[in-house]
């Protein structure tokens, strides 16, 4: 089963204030994320992981006249948070996806304390199995 783990972050210079962390806090956080990805790859569970650029350049796109893209700077459905990155993992059971999400959520912030980053977990759709 494949799951997408979507990491949310506060908008703007909100709750986490990454730009105000100490160098060693930043280093620990970056190191944690690298270690997590290495573990998931070694476990054969990692399908893909990407960080996303900050939301300033995010746009909402809808089909406009004649199907041409109508691009607007919002409105975004949730103003407090934005999607900061994701992992796609291939695991045997839903609980394993939750475990990985919890681990990612506990990435360290200032003073080494867990950030409890909100991680949204959704199953990725796939083609029906041949024998289904």
């Amino acid at each position, binding site marked *: 089963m494949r799951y997408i783990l979507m990491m949310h972050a506060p908008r703007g210079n909100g709750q986490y204030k990454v730009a105000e*962390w100490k*160098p060693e806090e930043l280093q620990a956080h*970056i190191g944690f994320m*690298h270690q997590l990805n290495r573990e998931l790859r070694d476990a054969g569970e990692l399908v893909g*992981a990407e960080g996303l650029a900050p939301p300033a350049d995010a746009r909402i796109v809808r089909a406009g006249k004649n199907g041409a893209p109508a691009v607007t700077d919002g409105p975004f459905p949730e103003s407090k948070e934005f999607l900061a990155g994701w992992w796609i993992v291939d695991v045997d059971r839903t609980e394993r996806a939750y475990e990985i999400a919890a681990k990612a959520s506990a990435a360290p912030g200032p003073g080494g304390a867990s950030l409890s980053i909100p991680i949204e977990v959704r199953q990725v759709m796939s083609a029906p199995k041949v024998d289904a």
Partner: protein
Amino acid sequence: MTSESSVGHLLRELAPQVLGAVVRRHGDFAAAEDAVQDALIAAATQWPEHGIPANPGGWLHHVALRRLTDQLRSEMSRRRREDAVATELWADWAFVPPPDTELDAEDDDSLVLLFMCAHPALTPASAIALTLRAVGGLTTAEIANAFLVPEATMAQRISRAKQSIKASGVPFSMPTSAERAERLAAVLHVLYLIFSEGYSSSVGASLQRTDLSNEAIRLTRGVHAMLPHDGEIAGLLALMLLTDARRVARTGPNGELVPLDEQDRTLWDRARIDEGLALMPAALSTGAVGPYGLQAAIAAVHDEATRVEDTDWRQILALYVALERMSDNPVVSLNRAIATAMVDGPAAGLLAIDELGKDARLAGHYRLDAVRAHLHQMLGHRDVATEHYRVAAERTASVPERDYLLMKAAKLREQVSANDG
């Protein structure tokens, strides 16, 4: 018995030559590729058991042409009644040389393939994919993996590239001498793009992409061997080697970017540097020096400095001024401004940067902020520098670069608060 790996290696070397020779005879790239693919499969199964033939290239050529002939024969029998002209064509195509015929002008054929892949009808992405597939000898799966797209997507990109070439009606042949310089420039551009795709992404998790840089260097070596007197080819090869030499030093333990002035220079690859430096006379001596020769010269000046403070910035500035004159590229101007700062001081650099900020192509570019941050830091303006690092970190689309910029800001802020406290 012959080991499978030595057969695989030989086939990888021979594949583009044979494909070039077959396409040259028949013009239809897709049919030729299918036929060569069949010949390669036959070789991969037969050679390890029966040994490598005395003339492996001739063997592959022969088998591929047989396969094409079979295809053609079945097609012809279908069409014979409708199309008399086709019979004439058939007579021309049906000649298959015996397997011990030497491949003539095989180097030339690989070069023709490169020229074709850098076809004007193709987008850069398609030209890169086709070059890697046809000349580079990477499988579609390997190319897809290197570009982080699904294999089916890459297969489609390659197949559409072939269709575009066919639809354009430009024949598969050596370009005329009038077109040649232009097409050669396109070939070098494609090789350069393959190299930088692999090099710039080698930071971070995607280590498999270094294959792309190695492949670009291997192909450029081949082109250089075929046209040793072309200064720009020598320049491009030197540029790749002198840049690639710093690869290991460029990435920290957590994938973060380590810029040139902070690299551990003992990690640089001496063999690569020596090979690159040895190419410099060829890159610089033949008539007018081109942009690759100049960029190689800049890389050479950096690589020759065993300590960062030994860097000959005056020479680098002169080279950037020359490069700026021949290319309308704002990133070159930005690098010239950095060199200006290193020669005439950070204040002069900031003035040059302000001037560049008026260029619409650079407006809002994170590198403007990153350079400003650096120069303000040199001037001791820590608060301003911190703010520019932060803005640059928010604007870059590269994770290792963002991490690096955030770290610079964090370290500066710490110094500021230590001084205040």
